[in-house]
């Protein structure tokens, strides 16, 4: 699935023009990106949480040459799927223990 299919759904559901639908979908993802950029997490109930995590610098190794290199401190984005999404992928079965960060309004 691509953005085009999402835009198509908005077009049929809301009755916006194709252009308006594309703009609003773009706005939604841009707003999410801007929020994550400032380090704030995004919690979409029923879907999952997007969390920015701070990674400390560490010594890594080039697996090909064995050479040690410093991996600099950086921020990375992780997605934690909700229990609902995880169970949907497994025919509604609850799989694995609930993660403590899974609660959607905490």
């Amino acid at each position, binding site marked *: 699935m691509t953005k085009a299919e999402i835009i198509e759904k908005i077009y049929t559901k809301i009755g916006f023009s194709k252009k308006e639908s594309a703009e609003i*979908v773009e*706005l939604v993802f841009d707003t999410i990106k801007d929020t994550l950029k400032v380090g704030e997490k995004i919690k979409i109930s029923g879907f999952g949480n997007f969390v920015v995590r701070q990674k400390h610098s560490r010594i890594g190794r080039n697996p090909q040459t064995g050479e040690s290199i410093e991996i600099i401190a950086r921020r990375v984005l992780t997605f934690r799927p909700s229990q609902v999404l995880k169970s949907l992928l497994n025919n509604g079965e609850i799989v694995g223990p609930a993660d403590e960060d899974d609660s959607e309004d905490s």
Partner: protein
Amino acid sequence: MTKSELVEILLSKAAHVSHRDMETIVNTIFDSMTNALSSGNRIELRGFGTFEVRVREPRQGRNPKSGQKVTLGIRKVPFFKAGKELKEKING
């Protein structure tokens, strides 16, 4: 930021859209993503990232409380990989 807070921010940026429509838009986006993933489809969002379903092999696990062995069957998990543009934005 929760989904309802996201809707509020979007409304402040697109005043011509009604509250009800904006909620429908945001819900439609995530519902269609959920549907795509549960049908096993990959989602590619240019500038954002990709979502795909990965299969975890069955394994022996242990109940950490009782120490009892449990068999964890094959299961599917959603996996997200941030796109280059978003990665750089977050790290910038």
